């Protein structure tokens, strides 16, 4: 594989026929990436940058017949209860997610409302002014080494613009726009919810997604304007060879609301801390997060809530489940700035561990610079309570069902926030995970 060079950046930009300012931005980001050191905190990152294929032009997804799909994958889909159309798409039988009827009518509705829902590359071509106004403003390439890398070589991702006062009635699913193989290694997602609008976006799925690469460095920027509301749900269940290093950030203005629902079950190492900058008065931010670390996995997740406006509110509820020698770590920041009068933050992070080998830790930082702030933080790390399991088994539940009931109770706060289509599949998914615990 070629090393990342300026020539590769030129090649990517020319191939996509991008405007000059984007090429300039990519080159600046490249310089920063090369200069910036690897983070000296968090999980060990043994990434061989020379092994990475920096840019592969999108090609039609390879097709295969349903008979060619391995039996175990079919069984997995059946047990989770994924709809047939989605099964075929995930298994590579269908080139495009078979949602033409649903998406066709949704597309018409979105267009009539002025909603833009495109892949990021197309959006740059068709809505350059809008793109220029927001791209990199919330996560500049100087933010961290992987944000710099993403800015230098980004490709794919979603672009959503919701005009003033428009309430999108159906959740926008990344599936609706995927027509090519894979979702991209360096995705860039940009969401702008204009004043008083509402939108829900879903990415990922409960099915395990095989990635052909070892590094996924994505950036998500969300602008939630005055009185708007955005909910962003992620269910990540990638293969266990992937380093998943993602920067997600939302700027929340007056009376607006941002909700992150973030579930991480796959990948080798995840470093992801969805954040909210509560800029406007009465802005609200929330994150409901669940991490599952199995053997060989390190889930380093958390959040940042920066209270800038007055009367701002934040809620952080994170749950972690550790299996075998899996490691979970919560890393968070709550900052109440001097002008954030009467701001309230509630943080709760709990970990539940199976067996003696799994590990968990928390590193929450709380910075309070205003005397009227109210900050509540609680954390606990404990093992599955054997007495609860014994009680349930004495009432006739088999060990797996008993375990599943205890864990279901533990994750209720998160599952109830999942979109309905995820929640149904998630119960089956969780039971399968517990079988191996």
């Amino acid at each position, binding site marked *: 594989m070629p090393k990342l060079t300026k020539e590769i950046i030129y090649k990517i930009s020319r191939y996509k026929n991008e405007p000059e300012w984007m090429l300039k931005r990519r080159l600046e980001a490249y310089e920063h990436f090369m200069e910036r050191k690897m983070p000296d905190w968090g999980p060990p990152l043994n990434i061989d940058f020379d092994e990475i294929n920096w840019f592969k032009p999108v090609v039609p997804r390879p097709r295969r017949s349903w008979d060619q799909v391995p039996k175990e994958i079919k069984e997995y889909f059946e047990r989770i209860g994924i709809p047939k159309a989605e099964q075929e798409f995930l298994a590579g039988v269908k080139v495009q997610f078979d949602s033409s009827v649903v998406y066709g009518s949704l597309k018409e509705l979105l267009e009539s409302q002025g909603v833009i829902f495109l892949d990021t590359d197309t959006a740059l071509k068709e809505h350059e002014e809008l793109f220029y106004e927001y791209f990199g403003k919330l996560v500049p390439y100087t933010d961290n080494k992987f944000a710099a890398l993403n800015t230098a070589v980004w490709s794919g991702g979603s672009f959503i613009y919701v005009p003033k006062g428009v309430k999108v009635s159906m959740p926008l699913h990344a599936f609706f726009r995927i027509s090519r193989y894979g979702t991209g290694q360096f995705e860039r997602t940009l969401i702008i919810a204009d004043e008083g609008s509402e939108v829900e976006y879903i990415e990922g799925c409960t099915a395990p997604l095989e990635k052909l690469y070892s590094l996924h460095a994505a950036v998500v920027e969300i602008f939630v304007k005055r009185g708007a509301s955005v909910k962003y749900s992620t269910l990540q269940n990638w293969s266990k060879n992937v380093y998943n290093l993602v920067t997600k950030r939302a700027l929340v203005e007056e009376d607006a609301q941002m909700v992150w629902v973030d579930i991480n079950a796959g990948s080798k190492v995840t470093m992801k801390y969805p954040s909210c900058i509560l800029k406007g008065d009465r802005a609200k931010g929330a994150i409901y997060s669940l991490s599952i670390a199995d053997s060989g996995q390190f889930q380093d997740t958390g959040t940042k809530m920066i209270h800038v406006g007055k009367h701002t509110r934040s809620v952080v509820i994170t749950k972690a489940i550790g299996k075998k020698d899996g490691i979970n770590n919560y890393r968070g920041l709550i900052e109440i700035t001097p002008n954030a009068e009467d701001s309230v933050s509630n943080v709760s992070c709990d970990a539940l561990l199976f067996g003696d080998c799994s*590990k968990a830790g*928390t*590193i929450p*930082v709380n910075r309070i610079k205003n*005397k009227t702030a109210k900050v509540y933080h609680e*954390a*606990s*790390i404990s*093992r599955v309570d054997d007495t609860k399991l014994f009680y349930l088994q004495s009432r006739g539940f088999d060990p797996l069902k008993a375990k599943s009931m205890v864990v279901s109770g533990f994750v209720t706060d998160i599952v109830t926030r999942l979109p309905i289509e995820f929640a149904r599949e998630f119960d089956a998914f969780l039971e399968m995970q517990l079988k191996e615990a």
Partner: protein
Amino acid sequence: MGKEQYMITIKHFKSKNLIANALNLTDFENKNTFKVTQKHHVFIFKEETDVFDKELSLDLVISDTAEHRIDVYLYLSGHQKLTCSFIARPKVNSFFIEVYIKAVLEEESYLNIKTDTIVDENITKGYANFQERFLIFDKASLETIPEFSILPAGIEQIHGMVVYSLDDKQGYYLATRGFDKTASTRLLSL
């Protein structure tokens, strides 16, 4: 919720008559380890100097399986700046420690406080509970890092932290009973 727990602590504090046994944190400036031997230790930190910038790092070494409790009271005012850490370092299996930290910050004081539990590889069972209550006035600021190092599954860890402001009604009540602002603040934030 925070205040209720706080009052329970005070009752406990009085019932044990521990003020007489209290140790001033300034006694530990040149030491960084403290052997936790009694069931209940009380540390108090209060400096009269208006301006200072101090660091205090205290390792709480636990060498038995008794149920230990430590209460820490910190009071900062003026331009006082304190950076401190309380690290539980259990040396035995089935250890048990609860640390309650209460701090009142006034004027332009600053407190940076870190708590953690760090164990040797051979320690696989135990219980650590850190509870922190902070009361902030004026332009004081606070940074807390209630860390749990990544530990094995057998070690149960709990942490709670509350930053709150005084209830104006309680302050008003005391004022009507003749307490000035300073006295009522002290009473309510004990």
